[in-house]
């Protein structure tokens, strides 16, 4: 089949990001934003949390969570700019800004997760 569009790829990242963000970020926020600081649950100490983050699977989880959410944002914001501000004629600039931002965020995420001691 002839494929004329790279939209499926971007939409795949967008929808994966949407699922990941909708399902996992509320849990992260609840645990680290409310439950641990307010003492509803006994939070892990710094040392054990560091141990957890050092584990390759945790790094992979955080990488997926951050990057997919970024691509979700990029895709949604691109269309918000297209339709909301009606500046679709600037599409090259908008695409570079949105997806470029997500790629940059991905690189920063990878770097930060890589340098964990």
């Amino acid at each position, binding site marked *: *089949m002839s494929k004329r569009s790279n*939209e499926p790829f971007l939409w795949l990242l967008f929808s994966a990001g949407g699922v990941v963000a909708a399902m996992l970020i509320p849990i992260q926020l609840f645990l680290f934003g409310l439950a641990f600081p307010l003492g509803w649950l006994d939070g892990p100490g710094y040392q054990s949390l560091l141990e957890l983050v050092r584990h390759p699977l945790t790094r992979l989880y955080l990488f997926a969570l951050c990057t997919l959410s970024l691509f979700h944002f990029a895709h949604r914001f691109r269309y918000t700019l297209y339709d909301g501000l*009606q500046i*679709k004629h600037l599409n090259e600039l908008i695409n570079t800004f949105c997806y470029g931002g997500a790629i940059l965020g991905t690189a920063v995420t990878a770097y930060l997760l890589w340098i964990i001691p």
Partner: protein
Amino acid sequence: MADTITLEVTRYHPGRDKEPGLQTYGVPLRKEWVILDALNYVKDRLDGSLTFRWSCRMGVCGSCGMMVNGEPKLTCATFLSDYAPGPVRVEPMKNFPILRDLVVDPSDFLVKLTKSKPWLIRKEERPLAEGEYLQTPEQLDTYKQFSMCINCMLCYAACPVYGLDPLFSGPAAIALAQRYNMDSRDQGADERMDILSQHDGIWGCTFVGDCTEVCPKNVDPAGAIQQYKLTATREWVKSFLMPWQGK
């Protein structure tokens, strides 16, 4: 209940008027009257030059779609008394060029509808002697909802993306493509995919969902488009992972 209600109706006569304007008419406010009855009252008793489309008066033909107080409605299924004490504003469907008064030009929609090939496509027709193509009730249920579309174009009048980007295929054309894609007797999904998976086909949709809200037949075109995006993405992944299967 007051016994009359004011209609504010768009009037436009190309060649004579520079732009569309509103004209007001007082019509009887009857409990059993729909907007279309009020328009017909105007046409019969007050102003024979008022132009609008209608046919079946029972929500089947899809001809009488108009904007009623800014919302796309079938005027045969919209009661006048719901808008009491009025005034009620009746305008031609948004996002379409006006031909005259309340009549819009559907050409763009018809071109898009044809492009999405909303009919059964067979690679090879079975000989008549072999009988009908049988279908189970379950197979019917997969697409039945989408087959309720009456081409009234209210979803196009409601769609903000179509309003901004006339290249977008639009809700009904995609929902009808999906109706045939999901039909067990059809083999034309590949042909439709080539057209609909282009940028202007399905990807312009940002899932606003207004099409589904205004649909008088509960078709859910927004759902059809999202389903189609998933199908197109699956095909894209397949062609990426298994390029040797390319057609």
